[in-house]
């Protein structure tokens, strides 16, 4: 039994849970991690564990790809102050899909910066609401200063075919990056 994971990132309200739910074979579940401001992992490292602490919820879904292979999709917590928990979440991940809302482009900068700094394969999926894409991909790429190597696609987080396409694009990109590194070494 093998499991893999992909992280879905994006600001609050951009459609992470919708994205996950569109392709998940189960209704999205929620795992909660108890944290304190000083802790650096998803699970609590506090020395006073019985004190009431902040919890952070992460929605996730599951896709059985073949009999012995399961893909988990985790919606990353959106708020900036939970960034330090992301290291745990992305550890060993295939990569990330950064969902972007063109009405709030600047909200996506931190996620893009983070994945670039961690050298985690990621793609940008521009989420169109009601099939409406007011900006063209090249314009969004320029506005977000996304490197040309990073795949960027349009996406409708409600549609399984569209979200599946985003996942496929990410895995192809991760594969290409891995093969490139192998050739280089």
């Amino acid at each position, binding site marked *: *039994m*093998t*499991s*893999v*994971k992909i992280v879905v990132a994006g600001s*609050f*309200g951009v*459609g*992470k*849970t*919708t994205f996950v739910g569109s*392709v998940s074979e189960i*209704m999205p*579940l*929620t*795992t*909660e*991690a*108890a944290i304190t401001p000083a802790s650096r992992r*998803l*699970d*609590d*490292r506090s020395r006073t*564990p*019985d004190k009431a*602490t*902040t*919890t*952070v*919820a*992460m*929605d*996730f879904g*599951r*896709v059985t*790809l*073949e009999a012995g*292979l*399961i*893909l*988990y999709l*985790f*919606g990353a*917590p*959106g*708020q900036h102050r*939970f960034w330090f928990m992301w290291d*745990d979440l992305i*550890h*060993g991940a*295939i990569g990330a899909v950064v969902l972007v809302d063109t009405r709030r482009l600047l909200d996506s900068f931190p996620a893009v910066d983070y994945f670039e700094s961690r050298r985690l*394969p990621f793609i940008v999926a521009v989420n169109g609401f009601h099939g409406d894409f007011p900006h063209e991909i090249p314009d969004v790429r320029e506005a977000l200063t996304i490197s040309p190597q990073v795949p960027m696609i349009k996406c409708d987080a409600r549609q399984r075919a569209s979200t*599946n396409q985003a*996942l*496929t694009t990410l*895995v*192809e990109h991760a*594969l290409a990056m*891995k093969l490139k590194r*192998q050739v280089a070494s």
Partner: protein
Amino acid sequence: MSVPSHDKWVPRGEDRDPPPDGDELPEDDGDFLVRPYTVTQGRTEPRYQLEIEAMVASAHYDAPDLSQLSPECQAILRFCRNWQSVAEISAVLRMPLGVARILIADLAVEGLVRVQQPNHAQGGPDVKLLERVLSGLRRL
């Protein structure tokens, strides 16, 4: 502890209205917030670090006396008759991720569960696994 079914999903995150101060905090479940680590006897560190997507299954053995185990551990063993991820154990059995990690590691050390940790020595799944994932996605 009864095992909640997957159907009892309470919308979280973006499906709820945002809290008025803009913070992304779920509603307090008073019970477990007060005593999440009581079940682990105050420990906050698991014996080894489980990935959130690590898979867990109850080990086949000749029915030892499970009554000595905590209700939470018994619930994990019942739930994991089929393979479940650490995340699903945390979500469905309604225990914080850190608590689930500690209890599962305890059960693994006792030989009561099998754990399949992703093995990514070089960082992330290897080429062969990525190709399997890709094939699987294309078949959906």
